[in-house]
């Protein structure tokens, strides 16, 4: 697509009307029965994303496999359609951020800030993930089969994060909604300054953060855990501890000197 701006300059646009930089869509995929596969080894980050978007948005392909992503950053970001994407390998930082709809399977590992601000869909990561996994996530399911770094689900506003390994420090920092299920051990400061949401931990918790307290187990919790374990084939759920917000930080409990005069 080409658009012309007020000064007569032309700019190429992608299918959503966003300006593309200079790269051309490489068109290197093999398409069979509506399933596309391409090798990313010799492509730049931008070319990989262009190819991916061209397949999903312009050619209507609903199943794409990317071979050899080579730990590059920012792959699969901003895909806003229902489709299935498989990365055969590892991705660097910012993997699959801002996505809305896709089911993504990453067979390797991811770096920092995977699935940042994810809106909906499913991402399954077979390996380990870096810090800030699922930061500001709003919906969908994120499953990490390995371990994650620090600050998983910082500022999380919805959705479910499942971690099969250990989690680092300050997991669920400032979490606002949603759920996290951690099947390994959690690091120091779990749920620090969380506003709301629910944490489930199977292993040990090094320390709870400020205003994170043990919660009361209900039938709804059992139903959720069983459903998620069934969907992702994680076997029988282990015994989990539940943690929620203590809501102490909702209100100040110390008075300003001026207020104290009025109250006391």
């Amino acid at each position, binding site marked *: 697509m080409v658009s012309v701006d007020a000064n007569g300059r032309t700019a190429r646009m992608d299918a959503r009307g966003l300006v593309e930089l200079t790269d051309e869509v490489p068109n290197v995929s093999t398409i069979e029965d509506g399933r596309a596969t391409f090798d990313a080894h010799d492509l730049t980050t931008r070319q990989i994303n262009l190819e991916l978007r061209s397949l999903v948005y312009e050619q209507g392909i609903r199943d794409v496999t990317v071979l050899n992503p*080579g*730990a590059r950053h920012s792959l699969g970001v901003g895909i806003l359609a229902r489709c299935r994407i498989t990365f055969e390998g*590892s991705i660097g930082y910012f993997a699959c951020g801002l996505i809305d709809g896709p089911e993504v399977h990453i067979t390797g590992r991811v770096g920092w800030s995977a699935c940042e601000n994810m809106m909906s869909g499913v991402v399954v990561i077979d390996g380990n993930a*870096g810090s800030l996994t699922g930061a500001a996530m709003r919906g969908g399911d994120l499953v990490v089969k390995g371990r994650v770094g620090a600050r998983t689900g910082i500022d999380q506003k919805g959705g479910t994060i499942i971690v099969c390994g250990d989690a680092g420090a300050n997991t669920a920092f400032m979490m606002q909604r949603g759920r996290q299920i951690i099947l390994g051990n959690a690091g120091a400061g779990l749920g620090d300054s969380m506003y709301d949401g629910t944490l489930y931990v199977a292993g040990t918790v090094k320390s709870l953060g400020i205003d994170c307290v043990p919660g009361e187990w209900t039938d709804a919790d059992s139903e959720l855990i069983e459903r998620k374990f069934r969907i992702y084939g994680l076997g029988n759920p282990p015994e989990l501890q539940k943690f929620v917000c203590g809501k102490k930080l909702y209100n100040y409990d110390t008075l300003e000197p001026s207020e104290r005069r009025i109250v006391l």
Partner: protein
Amino acid sequence: MCGIAGLIYKNGSTSIGEDMARMLQSMKHRGPDSTGYALYRPPSDDWVMHVKLADVNAERDFEFEQRIRRNRGEVRRRLEAAGARVLETLDTSPHAMTVTFSFGGEDLKLLADRIEDIRGAEVLSLGHTLEIVKDIGDAATVAGDYGLARFKGTHGIGHVRMATESDVDISGAHPYWAYPFSDVAVVHNGQLTNYHQWRRRLERAGHRFQSECDSEIIAVYLAERMDDGDTLEEAMHRSLEELDGVFTYLAVTGDALGMAKDELAAKPLVLYEGDDVVALASEEIAIRAVLDREIETYDPYESEVMVWSR
């Protein structure tokens, strides 16, 4: 932001210069201002000293080139006056040189101080195996200028710098040599908040600082601890208690490479441990620049210290 990388081959020496250049070049987006390498060649009885004769931003007055030429001779003369026998001098760049010499004495501090008395001179590294090369520009530029493709060695660390708190020049570039202790170098990603406290403390103990960069104290701190009898690992563990701020740093000695991460895990590091090689970098893409295949990597957690020896 800055990016750091480290690579240690457990058996035998390889083209470490070329490998480190590839790793650092792939992280150019983390810091294009300057690049530095601390590379270790197989140990020998001779000493290698890398000397910077002027910084890149130094004023180029009429006598500049003449002075640099004179100072090159002066380095040689002062080393010989201190009892060293100069075996080879190499003009690695218009403002730097490398000297190989044999030296039977013990007092490296005296040796370094005499060289640094020369106007504009700074000893970048001094040791039996350590060679520090740093200059402004990206990894490929620095590696090309200093001919690092030819460097064969066993392990090394490197740093790409995005200057935030001091100038874009060579004295602000990492890695830092732990003056006056031989063969210790450090690269660091982060900020130290008790820098001035430590700098005053170490200066009172007689150490000199060439830059305004907070990372320099880590190198001197570690070397001083090791001089007091700590192992590298013990010194690094202690640094987690005593240094304040956000940091991930790599430290190397003649036969070991270590990493330490602060208690917030605020700065990234990805780690690959293979049978014969250990590679660490701020981003996995740097490790993949030397190991172009799917590998098992993970992020070390907060307050972790790991050391690998050859």
